[in-house]
């Protein structure tokens, strides 16, 4: 096939909604001159909506930002509010949150591994073709996703936009009976996720190495989910509040997206590759063993092998969830009491009906960071003495990864300039998919456009 030396190609991320774009690579004089990824719409509406609302509403409002990972938004929101208001949730609350979050990791990773990413490695158009060739495999993926949904339904009240989460804990603690009913599906899911690691480890991976600066949480020897310090492969080790100061987002003229940099300089990568690189030693035993058998190196810098890391994290999520199910004690009370900001004794407002902030004189600020399935999710709030939100800032993983994904795209485009544009377009789409970017919920990769520059 012949093609001119000047051309552009891209994929329009066809959206259910306004605001999303796609990616575009422009080739001039046989060299890549421009790479632009425009798939992410920052949650500015939600940030604006939060201002003037009660701090109590933040978890439920922000859960609406994403249909795939509502728990992540709730958890970062709670973490930030609790930091602002000096609320310390009980160990039982933290454990129950971790269990809920394991459900979200499981359903999100199962969706991405089986239905979105795996077809790329077989050259299939989609999961339907994969199912036509290997129905049991797709059924296994769906069963894993269903187990994740079941955890979210049991702990969160429902699987879609869980309603049981509040600042300080939960509205209602699930009964031990309800939680113990999760054990059997989780044992099956553990077997299925171990089989998943074995399956994806056998895929053919292009030999690609990304020069990534990894950023993830680190949580006192546990694999990080709902909290911890923010660390990087470049030596960063800071609190969520310090991280909030370090992350600088800049507007880019050609897109509506914000590009995040650390201290305004370095692009970085967050998500499974980063979590694994910085926390592999903290994996649960079966997950660690599965990673070893899959010959997953630490750190893994091949973005295509992120599918193996996700599979290993599914094993971890099942193991960890099983541990939490087996040791479950209902938090009593289900949510922490709000402290008295004037020092009149902790728990002075039983039932957590009144915020300490309501009687405090000054504005309180807090930042919270948790590990969403696709990377660190930062929330930052200022709360006034009346308990109303004065300022809200939300930095999702995809806006942090945007520059790094563009760098991957450029690498793929430069390595494949001799390929027919159609083939190169496919490779570029896979390069984007490696990082499972969030396209503001429910945007579609439907139309492929190939333009030759005039």
């Amino acid at each position, binding site marked *: 096939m012949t093609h001119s030396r000047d051309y552009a190609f891209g994929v329009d991320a066809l959206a259910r909604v306004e605001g999303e774009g796609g990616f575009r690579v422009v080739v001039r004089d046989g060299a890549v001159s421009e790479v632009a990824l425009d798939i992410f719409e920052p949650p500015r509406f939600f940030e604006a909506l939060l201002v003037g609302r009660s701090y109590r509403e933040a978890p439920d409002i922000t859960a609406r930002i994403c249909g795939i990972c509502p728990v992540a938004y709730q958890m970062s929101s709670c973490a930030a509010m609790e930091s602002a208001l000096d609320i310390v949730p009980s160990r039982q609350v933290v454990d129950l949150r971790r269990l809920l979050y394991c459900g979200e990791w499981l359903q999100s990773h199962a969706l991405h591994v089986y239905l*979105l990413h795996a077809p790329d490695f077989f050259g299939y158009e989609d999961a339907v073709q994969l199912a036509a060739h290997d129905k049991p495999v797709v059924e296994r993926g769906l069963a894993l996703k269903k187990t994740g949904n079941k955890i979210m339904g049991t702990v969160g009240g429902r699987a879609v936009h869980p309603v049981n989460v509040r600042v300080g804990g939960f509205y209602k603690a699930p009964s031990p009976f309800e939680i113990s009913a999760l054990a059997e599906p989780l044992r099956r899911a553990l077997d299925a996720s171990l089989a998943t690691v074995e399956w994806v480890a056998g895929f053919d991976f292009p030999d690609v190495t990304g020069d990534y600066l990894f950023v993830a949480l680190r949580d006192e020897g546990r694999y990080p989910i709902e909290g911890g310090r923010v660390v990087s492969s470049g030596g960063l080790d800071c609190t969520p509040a310090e991280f909030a100061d370090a992350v600088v987002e800049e507007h880019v003229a050609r897109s509506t997206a914000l590009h995040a940099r650390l201290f305004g300089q370095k692009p970085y990568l967050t998500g499974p590759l980063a979590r694994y690189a910085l926390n592999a030693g903290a994996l649960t035993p079966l997950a660690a063993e599965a990673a070893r058998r899959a010959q997953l190196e630490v750190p893994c810098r091949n973005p295509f092998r992120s599918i193996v890391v996700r599979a290993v994290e599914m094993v971890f999520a099942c193991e960890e969830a099983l541990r939490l199910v087996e040791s479950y004690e209902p938090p009593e009370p289900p949510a922490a009491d709000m402290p008295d900001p004037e020092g009149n004794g902790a728990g002075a407002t039983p039932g957590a009906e009144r915020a300490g902030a309501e009687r405090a004189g000054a504005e309180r600020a807090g930042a919270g960071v948790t590990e969403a399935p696709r990377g660190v999710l930062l929330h930052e709030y200022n709360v006034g003495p009346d308990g109303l939100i004065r300022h809200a800032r939300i930095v999702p993983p995809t806006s942090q990864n945007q520059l790094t994904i563009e760098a991957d795209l450029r690498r793929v485009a430069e390595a494949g300039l001799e390929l027919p544009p159609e083939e190169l377009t496919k490779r570029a789409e896979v390069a984007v998919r490696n990082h*499972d970017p969030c396209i503001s919920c*429910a*945007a579609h990769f439907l139309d492929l456009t190939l333009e030759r520059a005039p």
Partner: protein
Amino acid sequence: MPPLVVVAGIGNPMRHDDGAGLLVAERAAELEVQGQAPVAIALAPPVGDPLDLLWSWDGAEAAVIADATRSGSAPGTLSFAWIARDGECQAVLSTKAPTSHGFGVAGAYRVARAVGRGPRQLAVVGIEGLDFSQGEGLTAPVAAAVPAAARLLLHVAGRVANHTSTERWHLGQGFHDVRAPRTDPMEARGRKKYR
């Protein structure tokens, strides 16, 4: 006794008119409680990720979806299309690859059928939206069309439940029967911008 029809609304209530499908499904369920439905329906939990329809569809022979459309028609315009008849996907469905982040209704149905799930009869009732930007509340013309959309949905549910593949449909005055539309409403609403 006629079979139970699973009714699901799809959309995001924080995206203005994108939430219309959810309200249509809820309104239809209210009308059913008032005895105004030709067939028993089961209202599925609100759906953000269409793939979650797989669990709502479990065991159902027939299902109807309510969803906002973006085809360029006047806001509030109602439409109807088959997604599947007798277990066969209709030509109106997109055959393109799914998204990088989730599935559309069509993709979810095709995955469901590929693993032997999903209702044999599946139809969608569309309600044309105007504003899909981030924010709460429907625009006035779309909100005004919700009750009619709910009645259309129940009518379609009755027909879907008793469907035979040769049956002619009579949707009544004012409704468009778009059994062979040029575009899938699911897809059309997103395509407008990029066409």
